[in-house]
């Protein structure tokens, strides 16, 4: 029980640090966006745009306030999860962004989970089969593919699997007009799955390479450990030795990679979304930055940062789960 409480206390402290991190990031972001050259009021492309109109718009956007007031408002908006109102749309930012985050997660989470599952079991398998053709080719494959730029791989996959073979759609999340519903049910359709396959496969392969290689190295080390010898001496089958004992004990280095890879994947989702026209948060952020829509860009960026920070937290939590020797102190 004490351990559990310690873990809770530890997590609480970590969460506090995460919050502080986000606060610093948010402030940094605020400053950054005030430095962006370009007047957001100019995005109204009317030849009639006059200084009076601009003043009006500036007031509408709240840009006429002193910076410190803007900053205060910005922080309150964030703290209340409101994020303000988009410059270019009447939509509250939060409504705009909520959908997009879901779309991003719906692609990224399965991809990361699959990448790790495949990486872990694949890595264990090839470490066990060390020296075989399987191990050599899988290792080479992973070495080559983790080095490939993901956006390029995405295009290669599109060219091969949709353009030449016509197996999957080239992009987007749903066939146009397939569903007018923007709730959860759209993710349950066959159509969605068809659109999901290609980006999911690319991301899984791409992000699976690293866990695969880490797992292989870690397994090779663990397979030399004394307890493996005992497991063998106990008369366990090789499969049990490898997949029950060695695999579980080899997970430590891989969990410490979760945070890094998750952060990498969150950031990289911008690229995948761009190639596949996936209506996710990364794509929204890019277009908001280009459109000088500060509230949307800030919120999107912040949410991406939140995902990164959460990836860190989850990695920490996993570490504790995977390694019973970790004590929270």
């Amino acid at each position: 029980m004490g351990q559990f409480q310690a873990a809770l206390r530890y997590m609480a402290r970590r969460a506090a640090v995460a919050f502080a991190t986000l606060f610093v990031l948010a402030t940094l972001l605020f400053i950054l966006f005030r430095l962006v050259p370009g007047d957001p009021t100019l995005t109204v492309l009317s030849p009639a745009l006059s200084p009076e109109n601009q003043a009006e718009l500036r007031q509408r956007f709240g840009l006429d306030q002193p910076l410190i007031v803007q900053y205060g408002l910005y922080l309150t908006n964030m703290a209340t999860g409101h994020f303000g109102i988009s410059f270019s749309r009447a939509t509250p930012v939060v409504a705009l962004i909520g959908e997009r985050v879901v779309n991003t997660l719906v692609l990224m989470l399965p991809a990361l989970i699959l990448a790790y599952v495949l990486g872990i079991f694949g890595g264990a398998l090839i470490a066990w089969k060390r020296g075989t053709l399987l191990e050599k080719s899988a290792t080479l494959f992973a070495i080559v593919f983790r080095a490939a730029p993901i956006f390029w791989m995405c295009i290669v996959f599109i060219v091969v699997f949709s353009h030449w073979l016509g197996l999957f759609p080239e992009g987007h999340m749903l066939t146009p007009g397939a569903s007018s519903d923007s709730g959860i049910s759209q993710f349950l359709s066959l159509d969605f799955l068809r659109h999901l396959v290609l980006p999911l496969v690319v991301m899984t392969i791409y992000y699976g390479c690293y866990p695969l290689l880490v797992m292989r190295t870690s397994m090779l080390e663990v397979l030399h450990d004394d307890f493996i010898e005992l497991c063998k001496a106990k008369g366990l089958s090789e499969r049990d030795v490898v997949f029950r004992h060695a695999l579980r004990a080899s997970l430590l280095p891989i969990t410490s990679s979760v945070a890094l890879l998750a952060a990498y994947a969150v950031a990289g989702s911008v690229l995948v979304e761009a190639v596949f026209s996936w209506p996710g948060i990364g794509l929204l952020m890019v277009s908001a930055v280009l459109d000088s829509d500060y509230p949307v860009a800030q919120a999107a960026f912040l949410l991406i940062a939140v995902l990164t920070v959460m990836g860190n937290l989850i990695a920490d939590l996993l570490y504790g789960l995977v390694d019973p020797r970790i004590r929270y102190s």
Partner: protein
Amino acid sequence: MLREETPSLPIIKPLDMAARAVGAACNRPRVAISLAILAAFFLVGIFANELAPYDAFVKQYDANGNLLRLLPPSADHLLGTTLFGRDVFSQLILGTRTALIVGFLTAIATSVIGVNIGLLAGYFGGKLDGALMRMTDVVFCVPILPFSIVALSILNRSTWWIITVMSLLFWPIAARVIRSQVLSLKERPFTDAARMSGARPLRIIYKHIAPNVLPQAFVHGVFAIAWAITTEASINFLGFGDPNMISWGTIIYDVFTSMVSYTAWWWFLPPGICLMLVVGAFYLVAEAYEEVANPRLQER
């Protein structure tokens, strides 16, 4: 990517380590091939101007003054031409130079930052350590690609800014590894001896401790080269790159936006393959070096 482990290493000079790494490479075809690939790309990068058959920025015309648009590979144009008649092979060669410059400058800058922060935090500890490490945490959580996009929309879209932004984002990993190493190094007898003899802290740090963390810094540096090249290509692919510089990422982006990626394979495939080879080779070399620098990782 690095492991956050503190190897207890003997005091070894990085050059010796490099020599050992090269020696070890000879036993491992994978690393030997990587080094050969890198050597080839280095030569191409250095002699880019001499090797490029055409000016990569200039449109090519045939004898009748027609633009040589989307030509497949031929003896005149080894890798064909682009939508606006530029020589792909020459662009690829110029891109090599960009990739290497970006990789190395970023690696050097980010290692310098990371190592110094790691050294100072690790050696002085206390409040300085706390402050530096919190800063490290914050920077660690900055999503690299989105941040670069925002930053580059403020700054000029130049390769130098891209290098700067990446250098400012990549260092936390190095700082953490170096710091934890310094924590153990500063308890070693030789540090005590230096302290006893009245050496000032900065002298102890840079004269006595720093040489011992160089191997780790070097490992990080080589990894950073690979990350930098990939990230720069990604930034270019999102259209935030330097328009006056040809990089592999820009080439891929040009094909993609011209919508000919499925026909003009000669234009689309080479830059990706180059990225794959160079980045992959740097990863392998970094890992091989890491094994030497950190004996615990040596394959048994």
